Structure formats: C-alpha cells, structure tokens
C-alpha cells in the first residue's frame, strides 16, 4: 500500500485504466475526447467548466489538468477564479436551499 492516496505521477498514468478493462476504457476516452472538442461551446469555455467541476468534485488531478488546460486555451487568472467561485456558489447554494426543507419540517412539527 502506498503512503498517500494521491500521487501526482498517477495523472500521467490515467490511460492505464484500460489495462484492467480495455473495451470500456476505449469507449470512455473516445467519448471524453469528443466532449472537449470545440462545438456549441468553445474549448476555452469547456476547460473553464471542467475547472469549476474539478473544484466541486475536489479532484486534485482534475484541478491540475484543467488549470493548465484553461491557461493553454487562453483563459486568464480572473476567469479561472470566477469559475471556482461559480463552483463554490453552487455548492453553497445547494446547502442553503436545503434550508427551506429544514424550515418546512421545523414549521410542520413546531406549535
């Protein structure tokens, strides 16, 4: 067993997931590649969405990968931080909107 759960070098070994299940890995990587091609959204917009989601799912590999990708695609520092704020706002909002459920239940049982 390794000393830590995360190792930065493992990001470069992502493709090795095919070793245990090649067919599904191929389907995943083909689809993944298509997702990030320019389409209705630009590649820079997709990189910034991925960066925001990476923070929401708190994946350190994805944060590294999509920080680099966002910069390569021409995003600036302010745009990247705004993307992180969008992620944080949705996470915060998702918690707070459940407050309405809490209020509903509280009102239901309180005199």
């Amino acid at each position: 067993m390794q000393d830590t759960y995360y190792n930065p070098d493992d990001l470069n070994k992502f493709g090795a997931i095919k070793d245990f299940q090649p067919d599904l890995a191929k389907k995943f990587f083909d689809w993944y590649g298509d997702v990030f091609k320019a389409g209705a959204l630009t590649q820079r917009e997709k990189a910034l969405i991925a960066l925001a989601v990476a923070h929401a799912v708190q994946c350190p590999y994805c944060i590294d990968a999509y920080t680099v990708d966002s910069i390569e695609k021409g995003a600036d520092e302010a745009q990247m931080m705004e993307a992180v704020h969008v992620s944080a706002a949705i996470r915060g909002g998702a918690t707070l909107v459940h407050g309405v459920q809490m209020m509903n239940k509280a009102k239901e049982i309180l005199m």
Partner: protein
Amino acid sequence: MNIPDTSAKGSLKSRNHQLSDSFLQLKVLNGGDTDKVRFPEFSERMKQAGLWPLKPVALEIFQMNLGKMCNQTCRHCHVDAGPDRKEIMSRQTMDRCLEILATHPVSTVDLTGGAPEMNPHFRWLVEQLSGLGKKIIVRCNLTIILANKKYHDLPDFFARHGVEVVSSLPFYQASRTDSQRGKGVFETSIKALQLLNQAGYGQEHSGLTLNLVYNPAGAFLPAAQPSLEAEFKHQLSNQYGIVFNRLYTITNMPISRFLDYLLESGNYEAYMQKLVTAFNPIAAKGVMCRNTLSIGWDGYLYDCDFNQMLQLGVESTAPQHINEFNPEFLLLRSIVLNQHCYGCTAGAGSSCGGETA
C-alpha cells in the same frame, strides 16, 4: 499584480551563467545530468514516423539573423539576446547574402535577431532586398519602434518597401506580456501596433501584412491557432482599436533562457514530458527546417534559428558558411536533429510561421 522587471536580469552570457554554453544546454536536454529524466531520443521518434533522416524539400526561406543585440531581455529568448550582446552581422556578410539572393530563386528573406533593426546596415539591407523583388519579413519586437527617435519612422520605412512585419505579443493583457518580455513592454507594444496600423499595416486592402506571434508566457503549450487568433482579434480591436492579419502560435523551445526558466522553476521535466507526449508525426512532416536555411550573424549556416543558438551547424558534409553556399549540396543534406526538436513537433506543431499540422 506584481510584475517582475525581467530586463534587469540581463542575458545568460552577461551573468556568466553556465547555460550560456550551448554544449551544457545539450547535455541537459540529453539527460546528461544524472538527476534529470532521460526522454526518448527525438531521432528515434522520427524513425518511427518514417521521417529519418529528415531531408529538406526546397529552399524557400532564407532566414538571416542580423545579430544578438536587442533592446529587450525577454525571459523566454532562445537567442539569449539583449542590450549587452554585440554580435551583429557585418556588411560584408550581408553583401555575400545579397550576391546569392540576386541569382537564387528563393522567394522569401526573413530578417530576425535580436532586434534586427539595431544592426546599423539594416535599412540598407532592406532597400537592397526590396530592389531584388524578394518578399521581406522582419521579426520586429515592437518596442524598438519607440525605443529611440531614430526608429520612430520604422512603420513608414517598412511600408515603403512592402515589408511583412511579424511581432511577438504573448497575450492581450499586460500582466502576462510583461512577465515574459519585461515591465512596460505591453503598453509600448500597444502604442507601436497603433503606429503600424496608422501606416496601413493590418488594414484591409492595404497590402501591408502585420502578423502577431503568441508564445505561451510559462511552462505550457499554445492553444489551437484559429481560436486564439479570434480571441486576440476580438480583444485587441475592442480594447485598443488594433487590427492585424494572422496570429502565429509558437511553442517555446526548451533552450537558452527558457531552459533556464524551466530548470529554475522546477518545470523542466513536466514540460519536456508534455512535448514528448504531444509528438505529432503530421506536425513533424511540416517542420520549417525543411524549407528554410538559417544564416548566423557570422555567416555560418544552420537548419534553423534554434540550431543556430545551440551551435548545431548544418551536416558536416554540406557547405558550412555562406562563402561556400551551394544550393544543390545543401538540398542533399540531412537535417541536424536533437532533443529540443520536440518543441516543433508537439501538438499542432510550431514554426516561425505558426502551426505546421
């Protein structure tokens, strides 16, 4: 944002930095330092791609490096140019080049440096080349136009001779441009671009071409050229009213001052790995060394400006100096390759004219 004044650092040579020795640069690139990862040999990758030995296809671009003297000291400079560098092309070497160009059908002469305009024979050379009817490209760093009163009329001079201007602008924001090229460079570059626009450059139907160069301001690769070009056009037009023709995306070569930056910042191995992983056989097929000959300030011949800075002359069986120029023999040579060549073959490829794939 705190922008470092990189120009204060000076060239590697002025600092007696060990990387000012091209032999040591090649040693690092070839894994000679025991603590560095050894990457697959570039020539092996070219063999696998069916591109070894790599041969020229034609001589279309005659690229003259007029010297290492420059008014800037950019952090990524592969020439290690700067105000302290005194190596510049002599009138005698230019004369020899002009003799060749008068009889050889090469279509394009690409003038680079340093800041080529700082060579005292620059204007004379452009006038002679113009008289020969060659397409002339000048790699102008923009700030030179405003560096001294004697350069203020350069946009009009370029326009009179129909010179194509190619200029570096790493980003459409000051912070990234200045972090690579020196404090205040962005602001001066914008003024210079406006002067070039006033002289007709980049304007529709003017016939005066202004192309910009995007170099990543750090240890990362450029995005696709068309999307960055669209973004640059949108931003520069909206914010500063600037127009230009094409944006060339050029990958930073892991040599000279950029190699120093990579090693100092701890990015060397990850950057090289990125270049190696992104090797693209289609980009490799279109590399610029196949149709370009690079002439050093002292008249020696190279396959490209990067090889020139690494002092990797053309293959020893080919003519070595402009005084021995022989186009038939030069076309028979094999192009000299080394590990830095991964910089030209990564992703969509990179050349003095942008993407190659």
